[in-house]
């Protein structure tokens, strides 16, 4: 059993796991909508967004595995760790719900992701900078789409507005982690690896406010009570079920080389 929590994990490795796990888990949430999206075009979009996130996750996790030096690879980290070893944000593991829930979660994540990647593209770590520069193009496009949907649903019919507002109110309690930072974030900033977390928080808020205003949606309070813990491995119950489904095949056939 791989248990990274019990090993010496440098701040950089933890930080990479946060990046990689968040992309991986949100990608898996998107992938779960295969065959279930409300329209064919939206299904293709959800799958492509998920695919981008999987690719980004692979790039981050591959680097984390190299730094760990245990002879593992990105697949190992994705498929052989348990929930308590995941360092993803809580927001990405929340269940899909209806389309408003899906786009609300995506939008709040995308707005954060784009500003984070903009900062990481200037990282003092060249490997992080090149992965971020590549990911940023994709995330920018994701944000464009999720913003459009939040605006369309929020400023749409009475029914769509009600649902979009409800989705926002429900997911909001998981946004605290996007703007709070801990000693890992601090260490990354001091090393010039990651951007200033306070600047990131300010930019995220500005994007969120701009889009929600256009969407005629009411922004819940930043001071609302927030769930936190994903970044240190304390997850909601949903992550375990997601991992069980995602990891089932590679765990059942751990030595398979051809799929």
């Amino acid at each position, binding site marked *: 059993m791989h248990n990274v929590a019990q090993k010496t994990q440098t701040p950089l490795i933890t930080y990479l796991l946060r990046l990689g796990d968040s992309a991986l888990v949100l*990608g898996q949430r998107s992938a779960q909508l295969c065959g279930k999206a409300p329209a064919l*075009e*939206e299904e*293709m*979009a959800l*799958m*492509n*967004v*998920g*695919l*981008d*996130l*999987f*690719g*980004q996750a*692979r*790039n981050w996790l591959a680097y984390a595995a190299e730094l760990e030096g245990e002879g593992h690879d990105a697949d190992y980290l994705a498929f052989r760790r348990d929930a308590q070893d995941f360092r993803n944000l809580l927001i990405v593991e929340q269940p899909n719900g209806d389309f408003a829930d899906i786009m609300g979660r995506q939008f709040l994540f995308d707005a954060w992701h784009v500003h984070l990647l*903009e900062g990481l*593209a*200037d990282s003092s770590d060249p490997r992080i*900078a*090149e*992965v971020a*520069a*590549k*990911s*940023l*193009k*994709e995330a*920018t*496009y994701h*944000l*464009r*789409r999720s913003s*459009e949907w939040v605006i369309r649903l929020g400023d749409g019919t009475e029914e769509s507005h009600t649902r979009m507002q409800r989705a926002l109110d429900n997911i909001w309690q998981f946004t605290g982690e996007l703007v709070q930072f801990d000693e890992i974030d601090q260490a990354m900033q001091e090393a010039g690896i990651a951007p200033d977390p306070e600047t990131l928080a300010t930019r995220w808020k500005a994007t969120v406010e701009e889009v929600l205003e256009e969407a005629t949606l009411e922004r819940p309070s930043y001071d609302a009570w927030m769930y936190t813990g994903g970044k240190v491995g304390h997850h909601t119950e949903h992550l375990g079920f997601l991992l069980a489904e995602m990891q089932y095949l590679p765990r059942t056939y751990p030595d398979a080389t051809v799929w």
Partner: protein
Amino acid sequence: MLPSGNQPSAPIGAGSIDDWPSKDLIGSDRSGLPPAGETGDVDAVLAILQQVPDPEVPVVSVVELGIVRDIDWQDGQLVVSVTPTYSGCPATEAIEQHIVEALVASGYSNPLIQRRLSPAWTTDWLTEAGREKLRAYGIAPPVGSASKRSLTGQSDPVVPCPLCGSEATERVSEFGSTACKALYRCRDCLEPFDYFKCL
């Protein structure tokens, strides 16, 4: 080093990126293709790679797609540097495998593929020939050059229908059959079509 071949002599993608801060998505270093270093071997390799199709858009070759970034020899071993279009492009491994197979079939015994992320691929690297082939195939090629504005939708271009040429088209979805395309529809001939979007 990769010769410019039938591509424009200016560095690929050095066009109008005025609205980009230099540190932004597409960095200042987009001169991925250096000027021609005239060696016969590189041309021979390039000619082979011109025959390797993109598995998802088989009408264009990996060279026309702009993902072959360098051809070099290290200690006698042929090294081809390839960049993925998107981080999660599922064809990445298949493309690398096809390149190796094509080279081996042409007598290069042990070619090495290097995956290169930086500078990040841009549709500005699609060659003119590649764009024409896309259009003839029914996929609208990227309009204009890649920029933050094109990605955020601040400058949504008019995308002519690749089938009838009409400019009365509309976007149906931000994504088409693959991550690199968006779905459009023509209001004149009523046909749906893929648009290879600017990235």
